């Protein structure tokens, strides 16, 4: 497996992309909560950005497959 193949494999291993540093940074973002930005996040579903057709469904199916794979083991 070449470098790209290895990257692809690790990319799709559940959780592999989310190491300790990732979670430290998430904790940082939560502790340093930017109130104005968080308000924007809460209201973002009312912004006029409509996802491209089929994106939500495709991603939903992909995540459902991830769920099935995890809980069938």
């Amino acid at each position, binding site marked *: 497996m070449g470098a790209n193949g290895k990257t692809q494999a690790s990319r799709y291993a*559940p*959780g592999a*992309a*989310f190491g300790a540093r*990732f*979670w*430290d*940074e*998430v*904790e*940082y*973002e*939560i*502790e*340093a*909560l*930017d109130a104005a*930005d*968080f308000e*924007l*996040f*809460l209201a*973002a*579903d009312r*912004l006029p*950005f409509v*996802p*491209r057709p089929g*994106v*939500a469904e495709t*991603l*939903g199916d*992909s*995540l*459902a497959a*991830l*769920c*099935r794979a*995890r*809980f069938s083991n």
Partner: protein
Amino acid sequence: MTEEDRIIVDAIRAGDPDAFRDLYQRHFRRIHSFSVRRLGDAAEADDVCQDVFEAVFCCLDRFEGKSDLIVWIYGITRNILNNRLRRRGGVRLVSLEDIPQAAAPLDLGPEPLAQVRQTLGRVREAIGKLPEEQRRVIELRHGKRLNIRKIAQLTGRSEDAVKSSLYRARRSLAAQLPGERLAF
């Protein structure tokens, strides 16, 4: 954590795929639009959504309920967006960590870069005027991006004492730097 969050989290942890789908349907549009606004790229926002929901699903055990679920999801989203923006060479004003010290990002012309450096200089000067204990805490928190618990461990102080120092330091910096939008 709200009661509603607890029910969803418990159901997902118990292996209920419908619960995760509910969570997805509830937040997809929010995360997608927030990402489009930040990145200006709908296709990249699609990838962010996938990354966020994978992180939520794969690592739900990390959610301890110290904050609301929506805050946790926001933290994940923001971190993933920050990482993408960093890879692009973008700069978030005015974070102590992200302002370039030597190399200029490719998309900054000389004028905005000069402004960034001026701001950085003022911020560094203000930090230099803080009492040593406050300066150390600010550097660990915003330079090294350590969380409160780790700073407390490193400095041998309680978490409350660290928070108190941070509060005093930020108040002092805000007073020294009127008009600057400090990303605390």
